């Protein structure tokens, strides 16, 4: 309540101060107008000078008055309220040119939209995960009551938790070493070395895998993408489970680990090692069997 009162007083003084600024501006304009117009036409020179000087003094005094008024009001306005800190995005709202660069309002809309999207996606996934054999009527009733429940956000996880999950997975597979780096901010970048066969760089966003690049053991990272990189990207799109991202990471690592025998296993379908010069680079997502890229369908 005290805040509201203070805000009221501030606003009152604020509007008066704005009026005072306008008055000051007009009196200053009057001063310069009278100087520009010069002396008015009178009979004698002294008369003209006297009228001019009087007018000039009047104008300056009105400027002085307005300035004093403005100073008095400015002491009443006080500091802007700091009870709603907006941090960096709030600084965008201070941009006065709203027509040309409506950044802040667009930012707020985008944020609300993404929140709603995440909420709806959570609802959709919980509905789609239900078995189709169950009687849908009862389930719908039950979930309708639970709908307002807020879904926990798996996008914002503490880095320590991510570290723990990754190190646990690394210990699960003895022939696969996972090193974790955080070169830019909180996104983890994993360097997975699989025996002496390949190295993979996995970029993560909290516990979700964002992108992978796979290279041979002695290859330069900046060489062209090969078939296995494409397959790894397909795998990370295939293993999706928004509610349990650590299961996703474990499945992805298990799938990647099947590549340890990349050069040793023949293709399950044609029985040969090479097809157009390539070994079987495709690993089935469920059975982890090796196929040539052209043999898999």
């Amino acid at each position, binding site marked *: 309540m005290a805040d509201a009162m203070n805000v009221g007083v501030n606003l009152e003084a604020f509007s008066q101060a704005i009026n005072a600024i306008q008055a000051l501006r007009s009196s200053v304009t009057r001063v310069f107008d009278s100087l520009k117009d010069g002396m008015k036409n009178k009979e004698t020179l002294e008369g003209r000078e006297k009228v001019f000087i009087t007018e000039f003094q009047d104008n300056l005094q009105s400027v002085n008055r307005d300035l004093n008024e403005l100073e008095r009001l400015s002491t009443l306005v006080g500091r802007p309220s700091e009870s709603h800190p907006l941090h960096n995005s709030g600084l965008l709202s201070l941009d006065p040119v709203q027509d040309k660069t409506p950044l802040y309002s667009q930012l707020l809309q985008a944020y609300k939209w993404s929140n709603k999207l995440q909420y709806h996606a959570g609802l959709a996934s919980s509905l789609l995960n239900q078995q189709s054999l169950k009687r849908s009527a009862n389930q719908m009733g039950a979930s309708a009551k639970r709908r307002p429940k807020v879904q926990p956000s798996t996008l914002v996880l503490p880095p320590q938790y991510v570290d723990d999950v990754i190190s646990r997975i690394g210990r699960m597979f003895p022939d696969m070493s996972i090193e974790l780096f955080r070169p830019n901010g909180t996104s983890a970048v994993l360097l997975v070395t699989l025996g*002496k*066969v390949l190295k993979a760089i996995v970029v993560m966003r909290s516990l979700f895998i964002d992108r992978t690049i796979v290279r*041979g*053991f*002695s*290859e330069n990272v900046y060489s062209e993408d090969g078939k296995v990189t494409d397959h790894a990207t397909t795998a990370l799109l295939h293993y999706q489970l928004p509610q349990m991202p650590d299961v996703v990471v474990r499945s992805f690592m298990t799938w990647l680990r099947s590549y340890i*025998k*990349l*050069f*040793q296993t*023949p293709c399950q379908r044609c029985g*040969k*090692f*090479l097809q*157009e*010069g*390539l*070994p079987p680079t495709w690993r089935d997502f469920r059975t982890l069997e090796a196929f040539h890229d052209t043999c898999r369908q």
Partner: protein
Amino acid sequence: MGVTCVCQVPLAEGKSVQQTIDILHKKLEQLSAVKQGNFTVDCETYHATGNASGQPTKLLYVMHNSETPLSCLALFEGGPCLTADGNFDVLMIKLKSHFQNAKGHKVESRGSRYRYCDFLIKVGAVTMSSSARGISVEVEYCPCVVPGDCWNLMKEFMQSFLGPSIPELPSVFATKPEGLYVPADCVDTMTQYLELFSKVRKQQVLPGTTR
């Protein structure tokens, strides 16, 4: 940079060295391999002088490979080996009193270099004092560094263009099937070439050329 296998290919029935090489080139081109230039591997022999009597003369082999043009390899058969700068040849001239060059024993293999997917294939004619003695084929599989893993894969590939005459696992691999190659100085590759050249040297005259 990968696993390399060097083997000798017997001549085709009733054909000369050059004709057999042409047949191999045609087979490679049928597989849609791309020719990428030429290669040379050569080997010079030096006798070590000043040995105690009764001991066999130790032979030092100095080899060059166009894959690593700025270095050369000096090795004793079955013994230690040294990777050195290209100026090592000049050094050997300075060491004339200790190592004598056996000039007639220089063997070299010269030919074209093909690339197919991740494979590098080099088919060359082995010559000793400008007489063709045989054909050498080197197949390198670049992505893999462990010989034990990809031997079956390489055998299948070599079968596709060499036909039935596939070599068995080189002895270099038998000693370290799980070991990493040392890619920088291609010691294992050159050891295999040395074995091939020694075999060719012992094989005094090529049987096909007398006809």
